Structure formats: structure tokens, C-alpha cells
């Protein structure tokens, strides 16, 4: 089922929890709503579920406005962070509850409950109460309950946040696979950018109730539209340096007190076309900062901190008043205090207007290059 949100608003008193949201979700797509806590992503999800009524705007399922429909009329399944199992019912009764309300016949109900429980690997736990299950098992019961009514849309509200790291990784894969197998449209709310990146076909990043950007994980990672998205997506986070943009001798330069880099004519022209201001914020990901031999460095910096990550080491360098972090192949053999030559991959650098916080490397179609 397709979902379309048109100029959707939700106000709680004076607070604009969701501000003029437009979003389209294709049939069978897996979309993540990503953002820090309080950004309006859960509010959006609850409006999709029919728990909250929008202040204004439309919610359409397959071109049909559903604003006025009750939750039970929307044919959705939802999984909550707290699992929201009914503690006084057995696993069987929990999963069967949606079917009981639909007055499905006893025999069919039993079959369907067993089928979705088996699908989630909890077929032998049906007579237990939720309190007798582990967190991971409870989450599977919640999933089975959401799936048993064969919904057209699955909603997830941070379903993995309460699980331990290892289990989270496993469930992540299982949910993604399940969604692909069933081909059901899924909306997944999370504050964890890794979860969003790994699971979703498209990610909608929200902040302060406003949609920041909407695109594939690749687009968001490689061509972030705004400063917020650039900083929010990616771990370790992108480095930001305040620099001066200059055009001279038929070339484009970025300057600070300690370093000057030349960027390609193509990118410089694009920035100029987008009215780049003189002061810009340059963003570069730690993996695009590399250590080079003595000749031809972009700049030199002092090793300040070394954080081994196993496959790579995360090294923080200091130069003048600035700090920059680099992911370098492990083991990094420098010592703290040592001066090292560094080079930046200029083609991977991002430029943002500090006033509007928007990328100045956007091409005509709105996507930054």
C-alpha cells in the first residue's frame, strides 16, 4: 500500500511537533524516520496509526484520505519499543487478540497464530506469559502479533532500542528480511542512524518537526543536503571546519589560518552558482582524511588522541585552534604529540552556507553533488 503525507501538521498547544510534512512512501517500501528524540518522528508514526489526529493536512493510503479512520479501520500492524504486550494474557492470547476482535473462527485463529509464531521462531512459547519471556522473545511476540492480521502497513516505533547490542544486530537483519519476504510497506522510527542506514530503502531525516531530507542511505551519506544531516548521519561524525572561499588565478580555494586547499573547477563553479558566501563550513568525513608522507601534504597536525576501533584507528589531530578526526588503517604507529602530515580527499568535501545550513554543492535537482 502506498502512503502519502500532504502538508501534515500536528500541534500540541504552541508546540509544532510536526511541521508541514510532505512525504511519499511507495508500495512495499521500507522507510525509516530518523532524528533525535523530540523531532516529531514518533508523532508522525502515531498519526499514521490513527492514534493522533493531525491538526491539518492529509494522510492518504493508496490515494484514499484516511484522516478520519479509526486505528482499527486502517489495517496496520505496529510494534512498540516497550513491546506493549498484554501482561495478563499468554503468548497465544496476545497474538490471537487482533483475530479475536475480528471474530475469526477458532480453528482458523489457531492456525494463523501458530503460523506467525512459527515464522518468528516462538512457536513453542505459546502458553507462556510475557513476564516469563526474555526481551528478545517478547519482541518476537510483538512482531507476531503485528503480523498475524496480515496488515497492509507495518509501523515500528524504535523496536530494537530495548535489546542488547548483539540481539539488536540479529533482529535488524530478521526484520529487514521479513519485510522483504512479505513485501509489506513499512515505516520504521529510530534515532539510530546505523539502523536507518542498514534497514531502510529510503530515510526521512527530521529535526524540530521539520523534514530535513528524504533519500536513499547512499544519497544521505555521500551527498547530504544540510549541515544537520551531514552531522547526524555517519559514525564517527563528519569533521566541520570554518573556512574562507576564494576564487583567484582561475582556481577555487578554501582557506583557514593553517591550511589552504584547492578544489576542482567544477565544484567551485557549482558552489559559485549556488551563491556561496565568503565564509563557509567545510565538512569532511574521517575516512576522507589520510596520512601521507612528507611530500605534498595539505597540512600538518599534532596527534591528540588515538582510539583503536579494531579494523581502523580513530585519531584526533589538533592544528592551531582546530581539531580534525581521521580514520586510519590500524595499527596507527604515531605517538601523542607527534606532528603528522595529512591530506584531504577534496572531491569528498562538503560545503555549507553557515547562515542557511544548506549545501552549496547542490545540483539543479536539489541533490548536492
Amino acid at each position, binding site marked *: 500500500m502506498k502512503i502519502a503525507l500532504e502538508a501534515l501538521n500536528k500541534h500540541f498547544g504552541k508546540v509544532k511537533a510536526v511541521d508541514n510534512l510532505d512525504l511519499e512512501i511507495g508500495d512495499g517500501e521500507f522507510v525509516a524516520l530518523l532524528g533525535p528524540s523530540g523531532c516529531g518522528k514518533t508523532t508522525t508514526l502515531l498519526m499514521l496509526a490513527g*492514534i493522533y489526529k493531525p491538526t491539518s493536512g492529509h494522510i492518504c493510503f493508496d490515494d484514499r484520505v484516511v484522516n478520519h479512520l479509526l486505528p482499527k479501520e486502517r489495517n496496520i500492524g505496529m510494534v512498540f519499543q516497550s513491546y*506493549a504486550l*498484554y501482561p495478563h494474557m499468554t503468548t497465544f492470547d496476545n497474538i490471537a*487478540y487482533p483475530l479475536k476482535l475480528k471474530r475469526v473462527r477458532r480453528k482458523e485463529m489457531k492456525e494463523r497464530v501458530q503460523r506467525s509464531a512459527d515464522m518468528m521462531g516462538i512457536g513453542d512459547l505459546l502458553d507462556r506469559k510475557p513476564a516469563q519471556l526474555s526481551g528478545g522473545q517478547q519482541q518476537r511476540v510483538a512482531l507476531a502479533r503485528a503480523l498475524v492480521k496480515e496488515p497492509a502497513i507495518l509501523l515500528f516505533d524504535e523496536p530494537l532500542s530495548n535489546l542488547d547490542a548483539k540481539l539488536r544486530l540479529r533482529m535488524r537483519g530478521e526484520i529487514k528480511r521479513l519485510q522483504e519476504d512479505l513485501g509489506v510497506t513499512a515505516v520504521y522510527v529510530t534515532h539510530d542512524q546505523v539502523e536507518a542506514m542498514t534497514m531502510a530503502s529510503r530515510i526521512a531525516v527530521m529535526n524540530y518537526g521539520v523534514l530535513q531530507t528524504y533519500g536513499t542511505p547512499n544519497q544521505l551519506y555521500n551527498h547530504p543536503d544540510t549541515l544537520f544531516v551531514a552531522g547526524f548521519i555517519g559514525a564517527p561524525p563528519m569533521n566541520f571546519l570554518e573556512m574562507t572561499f576564494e576564487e583567484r588565478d582561475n582556481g577555487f580555494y578554501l582557506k583557514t589560518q593553517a591550511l589552504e586547499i584547492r578544489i576542482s573547477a567544477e565544484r567551485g563553479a557549482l558552489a559559485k552558482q549556488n551563491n556561496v558566501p565568503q565564509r563557509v563550513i567545510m565538512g569532511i568525513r574521517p575516512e576522507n582524511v589520510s596520512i601521507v608522507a612528507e611530500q605534498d601534504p595539505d597540512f600538518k597536525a599534532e596527534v591528540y588522541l588515538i582510539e583503536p576501533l579494531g579494523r581502523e584507528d580513530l585519531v584526533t589531530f589538533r592544528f592551531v585552534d582546530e581539531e580534525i578526526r581521521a580514520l586510519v588503517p590500524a595499527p596507527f604507529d604515531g605517538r601523542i604529540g607527534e606532528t603528522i602530515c595529512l591530506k584531504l580527499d577534496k572531491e569528498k568535501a562538503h560545503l555549507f552556507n553557515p547562515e542557511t545550513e544548506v549545501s552549496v554543492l547542490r545540483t539543479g535537482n536539489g541533490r548536492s553533488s
Partner: protein
Amino acid sequence: MLRPKVKPVLAYLVLIVPSSLIILGFLWLLITSFSTRVEGLQSLGWTLNNWRFLWESPFGPQYPSIWAVTLNTLVMSLIMTLIVVVVSSLTGYALSRMKFPGRKGFLSLTLILHAFPSVTLLIPIYFVLLQIAKIPLIGRDVPLLGGFGYNTIGGVALVMVAFQLPFGIWIMKGFFDNISWDMERSALIDGASRFKVWWQIIMPNIKPGIAALSIFSFLTAWNAYLIPLTFTAGRAGKSAVLSLYLQNFISESVMTEWNAVAAVGLFQLVPVVLFFLFTQEALLNIYGGGKKGGV
């Protein structure tokens, strides 16, 4: 710093002194009710005479028997408990879950009412009950209850309900507040109506709260004195309750039979003690976290 061994001893001492005062009182009651006379805690002769009221009316046939009075007390307590629990859980749910104008005002008003001394309202309530008595069908002559007007079991229960409700509503609201919104939302999405959510999902999860409030209300009604005294014709009337029955033994013209008073007092106490023995855990819930003992 006290040494670790001294500390619990001190704690026990602090607990033993005040509780022994109460225990001594009950002990005296027990001994007295089976004695002809007592000197301190020492019986000067054992007898069952004080318990005569169980099988014969000691004050003549115009007075109701102890069993009629006990039945009255039971009916009044059960009626009051039932109404308090039903109304409190509906109101508590609405106050906990729904937004409506006047919600805050209503909550603080209930709290003020809870703090209101009931004595000040006795006279106006008396007039209200007199008016209710005039209403046909429910005013008077209802079997078992008598009705809801003046000098009826139902009337007394009604007044008790009014005084108990603010407390009940706050307690129930607290229990509802502890139930996560997600569970309710989940049920709505699963296809339940608001009423079904309340009845099938929420209510089973606040059973400890219902149990606690029921016990508390029942005990309050069972032990009530002032309200039954004011709104019935007293010990002689057909609506007398146990606490009033005691009065039969205390009069100005005849010497008070304290041994019989002790026996009746003990008789009134027995159900309370039994109740406590079986329900104290649930009762603790009312001041505890609420969720404990649930599931």
C-alpha cells in the same frame, strides 16, 4: 556510629513499645469477653455469658438481633464497595487518559473534598436524605437495602460512597497512570474499541488496585460509626449496623456491662482480622508502586 548489631535491636525496641500498647488492648478485650470480671489482664472467672447476644436478644424483641444487624452491615459495606469501585475505576480512567476541559479543576476539587471534614456536612445531608426518602420506588421499602433515603441501609451506603469517592478516584487514577500508553495504543490498533481496551486490557492489569480499593472501602464501611449513627434511627431501628449495636450496652440508666461490650466489639472485629490476614498484601499495594503483584 552504632555497631551493626545494635541497630536492629534498637529498631525492634522502637517497634515493640508502641505495638505492645495495642496488643495489650486486644488481649484485654479477648480476656474480658470470656470473664465475669477482670483485674488487669487477669480473669476472675471464665464464662460464656457475655456471648449470649449471639443466640438471644438481650434487650427484648423490639430490638433487632445481632444477625440482622450483621446482615445490615454486610449489605451496606458490599453496596458501598461495589459503587465506589465501579465509579472510581471509570472516573479514574477518564482522568488518567482523556483530555477534557475542567480536568485539572476536577482533580483538585476531588482532593479538597477528600480533605473536607465530613462532620460539617451532616446536617445538609440529613435534609437531602429526607427528600430522597420521598422519591417513589428508590426512596424506601426496597428489599434488603430499605431504600436510599433517610434511615435506610442504602441511604447510609450512598453517603459513605460520596465521602469515599474522592479517595477512590485518586487511587484508581494513580493505578491507571502506571499503565503504559503503548499497551492501550497497541490494543486500539489491534482493533479494540475504547470500552474494550478499558475492560479487556486495562482493568485486568490494575487488579491489585481494584483489590486494594475494595478492601479499603469495605473496611471503612464496616467500621463506620458517625454516618450510620446520624442517618439511621440508631440502635433500635431496623437499619442498625454493628457499630451502633454496641450502644445497646451503654446506657445511662443501667450499669454498663463492659464484658458484653468487649464480646460484641470482638465479634465486630473478627471479619476484619480475617480480611486482613488474607488481603494485607493487596492492601499494601495502595501505597506501593501499584504495578507490583500485578501480571
